[in-house]
Every structure is written in C-alpha cells, then in structure tokens.
C-alpha cells in the first residue's frame, strides 16, 4: 500500500510542466489533486518514473466569465466549482452535480482537469463536460490544441491525451435563456461513484422544447450523450407518451456492465427512471424561468 519509488518535480508554469513531461518520455505522470492517481500509485497499479506536480501552477486555477462562455482553469478544485457564484448563476446544473462528487476532503483537492483526464466511466465531471458541450484546451511542449468533450472520452479511463500533454483549461458555453435543468443520481452512499446518473437541460420557447440535452454516466465505458433521445424531444411539449419514448431511446443507447454493485439490467432500468426525473425537473425549471 506504499507507492513504488518515483522521482518528483514541482512545476510552477505550464511550460515547465510540459518540458518535464517531454524530458521524461511516456514514463511520467502529472499529479494534480491526486485523488484518483494516488490510490493507483498506492496499489502499484501505476509505477511512473517521475511525478510532475502541477499544484503550484497558479495560472491554472481560475473561473472567469466571458460574454458567451465560462472558462475554468484545469487546476480548479471541485470545491471551488461547487461554491462558485459564477457557476451557480450560469451553469446551476454543474453546481448541483458537484455536490455529488465524492466527499469534502476529496473535493478540496480534486481538480476538474484531473477528473476529465482520468476519465472514470462513473464520474460526474466527464458527463457534465459532455452535457455542457465543453471544449478542452491541451498543451504540450511543442503545440497547443483544443478538443470537444464529445471527442475526448475514448473508453474506460482512456482519453485523447498524449503522454506529453496537459489539460490547461475547460471552456463551458453558457446555457441559452429559458433553459431548465435536472440532475438525478443513484449511488450506494452519498459521494460514491454513480451506479447511474443523468443530467439534462431543456430550452423551452412558447411551450415547446427547442433544445434538449441528455447526458449519462455510470452506464458504459464512457459518459454518454443520447442524440436519439434528444431529437425526439425537440419541437415537442412533454407528455407521458413522449417521456416513455425518450426513456426507451436512452435505454437502447447504453451498454452498461454488470459488476459487484449492480447488474447491467438494473443500471439500464435505473438510467431510465433517472432520465424521466431529470427531464421532469428540467421542464419545471424551464417553465419557471419563463414565468
């Protein structure tokens, strides 16, 4: 339960971090909050030759607002997201989701960039990045690129991030006016990884849904957006029939695994129930915001 020996360097800038990564080759790991990495080190499932600590890169910790976007630095802690007034005003669904992320001691340390780069298939933040059409900024020693969240998650704990790359910023477009949101999760204990969780937004104009988003986590190898279900809702007002159709589309889109905590069938059932709850809450909030 003690990590294998490793070397350690504390970077104070992104340039320093990427230079250290490039020098070390594929054997280096970035440590941000360390809340997923350190257990893997303790179990010796990972044995990096060197840890590049980015906790001292102050320029990576921020939440700022532009006319159309919320920009979040990769080193921003979960607790900062949970309690940010900017997030509460513009992305309340994210504020809500953050209260489901692990426990306070973990939210104090864990970072948004770390959670996305780790890509746990039952974590909340990858799902929220998908729901909110996030874009990730990624830097390496020689280049910088951006990638949409929908292209970033490739498999369980597998993301489109090279050994020499570091996530620097997450850009979250503000939600349109008259958008309601819903979030529903079931976990064994509060703060545990989700058995299934659903986040949804509905943008409603004149009693009709003009945009629908449905994202899930815990129900497959990566978080999911369910375009088939979203398109069913556009142009409609909710009815029990439509809700049933939507739930069926969501259940059809997922490929959950069975494990110690829940069977695939139970997860599929749960995801449907949570979808209808999240959509009902989103509709109610959208109507309230129009009133």
């Amino acid at each position, binding site marked *: 339960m003690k990590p294998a020996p490793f*070397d*350690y360097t504390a970077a104070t800038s992104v340039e320093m971090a990427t230079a250290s990564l490039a020098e070390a080759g594929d054997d280096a790991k970035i440590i941000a909050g360390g809340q997923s990495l350190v257990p893997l080190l303790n179990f010796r499932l990972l044995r990096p030759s060197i840890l590049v*600590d980015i906790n001292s890169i102050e320029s990576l910790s921020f939440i700022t607002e532009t006319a159309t976007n919320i920009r979040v630095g990769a080193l921003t802690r979960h607790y900062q997201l949970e309690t940010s007034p900017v997030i509460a005003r513009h992305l309340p669904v994210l504020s809500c989701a953050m209260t489901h992320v692990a426990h306070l*001691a973990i939210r104090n340390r864990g970072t948004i960039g770390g959670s996305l780069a780790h890509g746990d298939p039952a974590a909340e933040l990858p799902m929220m990045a998908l729901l909110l059409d996030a874009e990730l900024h990624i830097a390496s020693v020689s280049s910088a690129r951006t990638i949409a969240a929908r292209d970033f998650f490739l498999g369980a704990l597998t993301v489109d991030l090279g050994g020499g790359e570091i996530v620097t910023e997450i850009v979250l477009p503000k939600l349109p006016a008259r958008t309601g949101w819903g979030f529903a999760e079931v976990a064994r204990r509060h703060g545990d990884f989700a058995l299934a969780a659903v986040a949804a937004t509905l943008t409603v104009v004149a009693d009709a849904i003009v945009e629908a988003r449905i994202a899930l986590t815990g129900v497959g190898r990566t978080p999911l957006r369910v375009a088939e279900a979203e398109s069913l809702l556009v142009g409609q007002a909710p009815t029990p029939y439509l809700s049933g159709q939507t739930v069926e589309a969501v259940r059809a889109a997922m490929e959950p695994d069975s494990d110690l905590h829940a069977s695939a069938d139970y997860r599929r059932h749960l995801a449907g129930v949570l979808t209808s709850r999240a959509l009902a809450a989103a509709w109610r909030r959208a109507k309230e915001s129009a009133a």
Partner: protein
Amino acid sequence: MSTTRDITVTVNGEAFTAAVEPRLHLADFLRHTLGLTGTHVGCEHGVCGACTVLVDGDSVRSCLMFAVQADRRRVETVESLGHIGAMNKLQEAFHEHHALQCGFCTPGMLMTATDLMKKYRLASDDSIREGLSGNLCRCTGYEHIIRAIRALVDSKAENAR
C-alpha cells in the same frame, strides 16, 4: 532509488524541516517522522477517511498526498484540537454524546467535522450524514457522531442569535 527532498512543514503551529523520499505519504510523515500518531491510517487509498487532516485549513486525506507536496504548507492534525483536560468544543461534544467507541475513526471524524462546520450550515441531520459519508466507522457508531455534531452546530447557532 529516488533522492530525498528537503521540506519545511508547519504542523500544529510548529515548523519542521526534514529530508523525505517523494513517495512518503503525508500520513506516514506525520506518524513516523514526527511521531504524531493521532492521525490514523486505515485503508491507505482514500476510502475510509481515518487519516483526514487539514492542509492550509482544508480537510484532505493524508494518504492521498505526499509529504513533499506539503512543503511550505500549514498542516493541522487532531493533536491541534485539544488534549485531555483541555478539549475543544467539538471534542467535548463527542465526549458528551458518546461519539466514539473504539476510537480508530475518531481523528478523521473530528478533522472532517471541523472543516464541514466551517464550510456548510449543516441545518439538517441529512446534511451531516452526507458530510460524513466519506468517513467509515466500523463500530457503526454514526448516530452518536451525528448527534454530537448536531448539538455543537445548534449551540453555535443559539449563541449567534
């Protein structure tokens, strides 16, 4: 073998300088290097919460942080709260409400509760339960722990009135 690093950490108000291997957990640094055995080590992978301490005022799992990362930081352990004969209010509340049985989880419960009370209103028992959900008590003495925190939160609200 990796070389050691010199670190200076302020623990419970006192500055300590030591040479540490990068892989040394903060928990082991506190217990083995400094002899502060109040911090308990349960699962060593961030699940049980027994090793919770405050770093720069925020609760963290000291088995998920390396001592080298605490360089130039301020750490507070359960020893900072008080001692027999001069317990702080939280410890008194735990004593009063029988909020410990074997005592193994208690340091983590106390440090977690310290941070929870600072950051959340804890208006309902459910909010206390949620706040403690990352701390395991294998005696399953949760009810009394919740009662102790409830009593202290209520008495503080009373005094603030």
